């Protein structure tokens, strides 16, 4: 755990302590489990985003992918009667294809990632809305997929499975990012693509892989989200989740200039954002202030981090 991650952890602990003192229910097991569930859901796609941000790119279509794949998944499973494991695999495959498309457009066609994924944001949501004719896709009453539901929304030893899934993904991705050859190449490409190319790294392949990893993880999170909301209105499902993911990644120490980031940081970033959402509801703060609280804490956190590192630098 590096210094940045540690700072974030301290911030989380401080915020959580203050909230717990003012509202002891904050640390009641049921609330912790609820929050853990949301951390799992949001953490999955925030980790995904980190991979792309480390290459110096950005993935703005996260929310739209979650809407489109969610709609398709629910429709296939509920209305078309497709067995859910097939449907889930299909979604992951579709996710991979989207990432491949983004990666190819960015590397071969040399279009800026912001543009490619902004178009993705617009197109996928449009397709999702068209698919349902602007209606909602949802599980009908009593429709029951016990295994699927247990796997996604169930709990083991009181821990929500979405959280467990996120932890497993985070662990795997930690190894990939911080220990594997691919991870090192990712950082190199993000820092200086040209220099990486001159060192014989297949930079295009690395970048494409980052986008594919991102959309595949996002596809998995889309399935979890679909099971969580159980009905999906494609015009609003997942709106602004891309900003959310980027905020978590950046809070967690990723630089939008590329070449920097850590999985632990991103997970902690997600935790902080969820704790903030939760405290607004628990402390009875008007929900209109939800956003304002989140914005202020991010700003204060980043400012504090900045000041501390300055201070340290001077101290040396």
């Amino acid at each position, binding site marked *: 755990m590096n210094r940045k991650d540690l700072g974030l952890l301290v911030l989380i602990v401080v915020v959580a302590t203050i909230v717990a003192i003012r509202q002891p229910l904050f640390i009641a097991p049921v609330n912790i489990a609820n929050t853990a569930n949301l951390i799992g859901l949001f953490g999955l796609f925030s980790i995904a985003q980190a991979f792309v941000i480390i290459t110096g790119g950005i993935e703005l279509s996260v929310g739209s992918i979650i809407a489109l794949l969610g709609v398709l998944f629910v429709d296939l499973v509920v209305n078309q009667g497709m067995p859910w494991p097939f449907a889930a695999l299909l979604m992951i495959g579709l996710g991979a294809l989207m990432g491949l498309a983004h990666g190819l457009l960015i590397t071969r066609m040399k279009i800026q990632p912001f543009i490619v994924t902004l178009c993705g944001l617009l197109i996928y949501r449009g397709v999702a809305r068209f698919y349902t004719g602007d209606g909602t896709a949802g599980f009908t009453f009593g429709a029951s997929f016990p295994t699927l539901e247990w796997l996604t929304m169930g709990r083991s030893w009181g821990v929500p499975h979405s959280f467990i899934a996120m932890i497993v993904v985070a662990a795997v991705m930690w190894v990939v990012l911080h*220990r*594997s*050859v691919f991870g090192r190449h990712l950082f190199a490409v993000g*820092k*200086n693509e040209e*220099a*990486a190319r*001159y*060192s*014989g790294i297949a930079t295009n392949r690395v970048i494409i892989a980052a986008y594919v990893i991102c959309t595949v993880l996002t596809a998995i999170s889309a399935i979890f989200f679909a099971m969580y909301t159980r009905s999906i209105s494609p015009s609003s499902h997942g709106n602004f989740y891309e900003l959310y993911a980027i905020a978590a990644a950046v809070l967690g120490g990723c630089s939008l200039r590329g070449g920097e980031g850590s999985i632990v940081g991103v997970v902690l970033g997600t935790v902080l954002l969820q704790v903030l959402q939760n405290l607004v509801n628990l402390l009875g703060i008007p929900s209109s202030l939800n956003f304002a609280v989140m914005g202020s804490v991010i700003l204060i956190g980043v400012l504090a981090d900045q000041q501390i590192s300055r201070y340290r630098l001077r101290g040396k």
Partner: protein
Amino acid sequence: MAEPFLELVGITKTFPGVAALSDVTFSIAPGEVVGLVGENGAGKSTLMKILGGVTQPTAGELRVDGARRDSFSVPDAIRSGIAFVHQELNLFDNLDVAANIFIGREPLKGGPLRLVDREALRAQVEPLLARLKVGYGARTPVRDLSIAQQQLLEIVKALSLRSRLVIMDEPTSSLTLTETDRLMSVIDELRADGVGIIFISHRLHEVERCADRVVVLRDGRMVGELAKGEITHERMIRLMIGRDLKSLYTPPKAPPGATALAIDDVVTSTYPGKRVSLEVRSGEILGLAGLVGSGRTELANAVFGIEPLLGGSVSLDGTRLRIDSPRDAIRQGIYLAPEDRKSFGLLLDFPIVDNISLPDLASYASASLVNRGREIENADRQKQRLNIRAPNVTTRVGTLSGGNQQKVVLAKWLSMKPRVIIFDEPTRGVDVGAKKEIYELLRALSDAGVAILMISSDMEEVVGVSDRVAVMHEGTISGFLRRDELSEHSVLRLAVGTTATKGTA
């Protein structure tokens, strides 16, 4: 000699972990050309940055016209008449030549609207460009200029200031003889006009040619000063490194072997009508000389798979290769140490060890997981072997001096199995001591059977190191020279396009 108008007294500058300068005292008078020499990392650029207001000293005093200045910023420096040609290029490639020259002090019109007077701007720029015969116009976009042309532009920019002092931090590092000559005559003119000049270069004969006085730095301290009559190559070197240096050229241990790299009728995009053919034998150092923009870098990039081959072929040991990317080239054992080290050769934010292992990371990994211990072990070995001066191998490459950075580039390739190494300006911005070490490495490599293609604009280097020289002129080879035919004169004749008899092929 006139009174000094600028004085630095007892300047000390420390960076975290390094004392870049300690207690340096230095002054310069109008119409004086001071050569500033020293090894890489001796603190030359740092000293100049303090003069230019770019960095502030940790301790010491700065006096302009005898008045003490407690804080000295870039605008202060400009106001005091100090112009600065930075070692690193500081150009805006989204703007044109004229805009770059006058950036920060554009001629104005329109009163409070503060509009740029484009006519006046051009009128002021054209004569400056003509004076240095740069070969491009005021409205040429800077992104279309080569590195050497950009370096000339930096010089033009400094001249445009009509300043009292021009600091030139390695202005010639990518210039060839002709441009350097022009620069020398400009320096003479400036001196006649009463302008003071500080001239930093690792090409000591240039310093010899123009300096009235030489100041030598070693490890951040002033170790000596030479007056006009005492300035010789040998004395400068002795002061810089504390000992003598023998001649550059070491003959190969064995005669060169069979042809390793063969370039046949290769066509590149800048000179689509021209073809290049040359061969490099294993165990041979082939120098590739030529004027700025003659297409050498482009040829190297084409061979290395950075740019597409528009025609012709590249073969290694008689086998024709298909190279679409640097990856392909590296797999075949063809490596390139690029001209622009900082942009292409290194990841400046990465530690030394990560840079060294980057091209070959898989070989330090089992099951695709990197073994950090093995990586560091190898990097330590290379650090020892190449004498890379750094606290340890986890030091960020960006904090190293130019020569040490270049050694890291070398270390990266030496950790693998080279067949052919192309060096594009291998000693750009590298001090004599380190240069010598790099030449010895080149020779050691070639003795080990590696074929070496050395692109260089430094005439001393071309003549002094190569076993054989090919000269390029406008996208094609204008001739080859054997070792016994080599002289600055013969290379230059070919470089400007006079065709000669073919040397031994």
